[in-house]
């Protein structure tokens, strides 16, 4: 245990001066990075923002610390303070020691000795983090030049190619001459990692390194980070809001809230034995992709604290269901949890929270809502939306004056599905798979479209004049991804909600009544109708967006990534609301989301799209538990689960490369270029995949099922498009994490 990373000081109580003193005397000398009592304050127009309030941790060589928190919790500011990259106006105090040498207070020039050398960082957005005007090779070589001025040009080139190969970029020697815009997002993040590990750093800080990436690419990048850590032996600080991402990687976790660490400890302790209500809430708020049972998510009501005011009580108390008088008397310090070594929690009730306390009881998660349609078999319910062979092809042209058609981008290629009353149908897939185009095609509703869209019995082929379209709009409404961008900032909530009603020809009295109803329905206070959108939090804004969509009583609501812009704790509340509305109002949803855990939680049926085609479709639990198509299997295995034990042992399929350009789409199966099954097939069978397009076919009932049932066999609701669903997987693409370097404490 002593070789493990320790979080939290030995004696956390006492004045900052004392703690610094203690740190100086007792900090383990073998820690590569020790942070003590780190405070960061910014001057803003409204006053001093105290963004980080006392962070302590020790990072041991080769270990990984996960810092988890929501936006505004101070996790990124902490990392930038360690790197010395905060603006000069930031007021930083405390101590940051890298192998015993103090970093705080060093000049920009002195700090440069450490940055990129012993201490390096990978940032969140790979698209903007590389200089667009220099080649990738130049940018990697630069990192080498700065710290090794004597290194020869040739040596730098060799090393740069070696680094690119290490992070898994094919033909690295040629790619050195490429510019960042010639790389995809995932490739750019690999380059960022290559730059960060160029000088074999002792500490690597990764700030949300995969947040901007697709799940399959996220799995690749996490794997690369893992390799990089093994190659360099660096200690890693992994900053994330996603509890799944760190579950498999981290040795220790620090949960931050309101600028302060509220719980620290070994990873298993935090996930299986959390002692701070906020951590418990966070864990309960994320849906699990590997769990079929439907329990409501834990919503954490309220908003994160305003860091302008120095808290006088526990900063989580206003949102905490367990808060009592005692919680308001001063902010609790990070104290050791009795009986559990190295586990600290900043909660006066942490002792009582151990054992088998159920999160759902503490946070009063609402009961699972039941829809009146649930009892009716699917076949007997009315169809609210039907797509028949929808196609959207974009011509790709070349030349400025005389355009030549050089190819076709098949954004959506022959899509058919239907949605019945009271069900939630989801479309999942990587970016570029055609999810959004599908939604746009449905909203387009035009006679000249390729394919038929039937909404509530109105077909785009028969009546697509403005009257029919108006009638259609009353059947179908949309909720958008970014709640801030989708609401007019100059409209009050009342005006936002009144607009669709006026459009429907309602009178003033009726509109007023309906708006009050809507506000209550989505859990907002009716007397807030005269406020502007910017006076609400992100979650509340999304509720306004939902209310607007529901105003005209539609049968079908199209949800385009409805929770992806929200923090985890807020997301849970919105998901619960959507669940409740579907049950109470008998709504149907068409959901597009990249977060498969959310999809599993609220959907009844799901379609997996790849390059404009559905590769697998069916009942959600069947598809998630017994995926047949290799792409579905890869997609599901790419999702990290917030459960360290599962993460450490499960087998993962890591797809090679990115989504191919639609121009290079193969003739036969679209997925053949990345398919783990295809790669392991004998050439004769590969030929079939390459030349023939697999049709979307129902899963044949197993022999056992046939034997059991007498008479007609019920066909399970699952169809997929693959010739060899039971084929062996290519071993190169399978990854099982090594048990040896992640022994459970």
């Amino acid at each position: 245990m002593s070789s493990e990373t320790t979080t939290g000081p030995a004696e956390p109580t006492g004045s900052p001066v004392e703690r610094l003193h203690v740190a100086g005397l007792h900090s383990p000398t073998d820690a590569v990075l020790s942070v003590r009592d780190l405070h960061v304050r910014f001057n803003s127009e409204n006053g001093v923002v105290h963004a980080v309030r006392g962070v302590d941790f020790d990072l041991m060589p080769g270990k990984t610390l996960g810092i988890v928190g929501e936006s505004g919790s101070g996790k990124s500011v902490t990392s930038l303070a360690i790197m010395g990259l905060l603006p000069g106006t930031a007021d930083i105090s405390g101590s940051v020691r890298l192998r015993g040498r103090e970093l705080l207070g060093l000049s920009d020039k002195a700090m440069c000795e450490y940055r990129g050398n012993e201490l390096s960082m990978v940032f969140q957005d790979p698209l903007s983090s590389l200089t667009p005007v220099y080649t990738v090779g130049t940018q990697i070589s630069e990192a080498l030049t700065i710290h090794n001025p004597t290194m020869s040009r040739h040596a730098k080139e060799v090393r740069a190619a070696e680094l690119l190969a290490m992070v898994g970029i094919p033909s690295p020697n040629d790619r050195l001459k490429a510019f960042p815009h010639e790389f995809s997002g995932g490739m750019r993040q690999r380059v960022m990692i290559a730059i960060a590990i160029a000088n074999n750093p002792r500490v690597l800080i990764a700030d949300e390194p995969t947040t901007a990436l697709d799940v399959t690419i996220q799995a690749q990048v996490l794997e690369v980070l893992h390799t990089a850590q093994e190659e360099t032996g660096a200690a890693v600080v992994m900053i994330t809001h996603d509890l799944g991402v760190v579950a498999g990687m981290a040795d220790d976790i620090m949960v931050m809230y309101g600028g302060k660490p509220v719980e620290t400890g070994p990873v298993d302790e935090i996930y299986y034995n959390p002692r701070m209500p906020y951590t418990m809430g966070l864990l309960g708020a994320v849906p699990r992709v590997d769990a079929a049972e439907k329990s409501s998510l834990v919503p954490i009501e309220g908003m994160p604290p305003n860091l302008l005011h120095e808290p006088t009580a526990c900063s989580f108390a206003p949102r905490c269901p367990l808060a009592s008088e005692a919680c308001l008397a001063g902010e609790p310090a990070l104290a050791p949890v009795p009986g559990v070594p190295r586990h600290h929690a900043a909660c006066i009730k942490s002792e009582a929270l151990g054992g088998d306390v159920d999160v759902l009881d503490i946070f009063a998660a609402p009961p699972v809502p039941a829809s009146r349609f649930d009892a009716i078999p699917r076949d007997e319910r009315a169809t609210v939306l039907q797509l028949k062979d929808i196609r959207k092809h974009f011509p790709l042209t070349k030349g400025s004056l005389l355009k030549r058609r050089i190819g076709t981008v098949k954004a959506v290629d022959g899509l058919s599905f239907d949605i019945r009353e009271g069900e939630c149908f989801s479309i999942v897939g990587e970016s570029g798979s055609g999810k959004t185009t599908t939604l746009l095609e449905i909203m387009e509703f035009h006679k000249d479209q390729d394919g038929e869209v039937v909404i509530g019995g109105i077909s785009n082929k028969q009546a697509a004049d403005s009257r029919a379209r108006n009638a259609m709009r009353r059947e179908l409404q949309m909720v958008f991804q970014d709640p801030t961008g989708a609401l007019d900032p100059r409209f009050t909530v009342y005006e936002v909600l009144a607009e669709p009603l006026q459009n429907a020809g309602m009178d003033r009295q009726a509109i007023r009544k309906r708006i009050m109803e809507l506000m209550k329905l989505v859990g907002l206070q009716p007397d807030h109708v005269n406020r502007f959108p910017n006076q609400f939090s992100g979650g509340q804004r999304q509720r306004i967006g939902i209310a607007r969509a529901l105003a005209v009583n539609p049968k079908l609501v199209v949800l385009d990534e409805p929770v992806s812009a929200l923090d985890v704790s807020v997301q849970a509340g919105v998901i619960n609301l959507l669940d409740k509305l579907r049950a109470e109002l008998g709504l149907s949803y068409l959901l597009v989301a990249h977060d498969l855990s959310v999809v599993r939680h609220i959907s009844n049926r799901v379609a997996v799209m790849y390059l404009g085609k559905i590769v697998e479709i069916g009942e959600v639990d069947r598809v998630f538990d017994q995926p047949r198509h290799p792409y579905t299997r890869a997609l599901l295995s790419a999702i990290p689960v917030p459960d360290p034990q599962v993460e450490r042992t499960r087998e993962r399929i890591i797809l090679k490369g990115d989504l191919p350009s639609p121009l290079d789409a193969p003739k036969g199966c679209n997925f053949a270029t990345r398919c783990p099954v295809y790669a392991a097939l004998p050439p004769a069978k590969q030929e079939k995949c390459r030349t023939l397009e697999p049709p979307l076919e129902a899963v044949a009932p197993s022999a056992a099922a046939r034997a059991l049932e007498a008479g007609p066999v019920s066909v399970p609701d699952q169809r997929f498009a693959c010739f060899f669903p039971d084929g062996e997987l290519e071993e190169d693409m399978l990854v099982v994490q090594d048990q040896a370097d992640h022994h459970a404490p």
Partner: protein
Amino acid sequence: MLRYLARRGLTYLVMIFLTTSAGYLLAVSTLKPALLEQERIPRPTPEQVATSMRLKGLDPDLSPWERYVEWLTAIVTRWDWGRSPNGAYINAEFGDRVWISTRLFLASIILTLVIGVALGVYSAARQYKFQDRVITSYSYLAYIVPAPIAYFLVQLGAININESVGERIFFVTGISTPGIGPGWAQFVDMLAHYAVPTVAITLVGWGSYQIAQRQYLLDNVNADFVRTARAKGLTRNQAITRHALRVSFIPVAQSIAFTIPAIFAGGFFAEKIFAWPGVGSWSIDAISLQDVNAATATLAYGSVIFAIGAILADFATTLVDPRVRVQ
């Protein structure tokens, strides 16, 4: 790259032809030099005027289209841009004028660009500090003050220097002193004539570049890739000069295209105030003298300068920005 530039060059050639043709047709149907001839004393008879015009190739009796064809044929076959109503040959005068304009503006254009961009970088690196406030305030002032007034002020300053020294160091008008022999004396005389207009035009001109460069650089100073560069171990200033500067220069390079022609062809005030008879003053004079051929020639010249500026900008953009490089 060469093919790309050749293609752009061809596009601009077509553009120059179109603007010049349109300009000629407009000039020939509105400008009537014959009317001015009639104000002479003794007043010539209409026949005399018509004959004199016909001899200079400015026959007022032909239709605009016929004259256009005649004019175009002369240019294409003999590179003859016609004559002015006073009998002067456009070709001869044009060469002189362009040479004068070029000498007047070339040095200041280069100085304006270099000083403007350098000050923009300097002030951006010291945002809101004293130096930045002084430089940027000056740039806005230079923006606001009408150019003629600024030129007069510089002239006054030069005269003050001359007076306080008690000797004529600077010439505030004119191109050269007549009758000075070649050699050192001529060189000193040239410098004395050059100094005042060059300084005046530069002082007024750099403001726009400074403001633009400062703005674009500030947009990039806090860019993610500058943070990456700093995380690699560059100091803030190194990261800015190596990474942000080049990216921020892309839009500035593009704006050059549109300032060069404005200075060259629109330098009317500078040419008048410093008494350098260049293209700018010629174009204004041509219109007041109802001189169809001279007016069209200056217009064609303006288009050519614009095309050169635009090609230079394309070239500069291609140099600094790999994203627009064509394979």
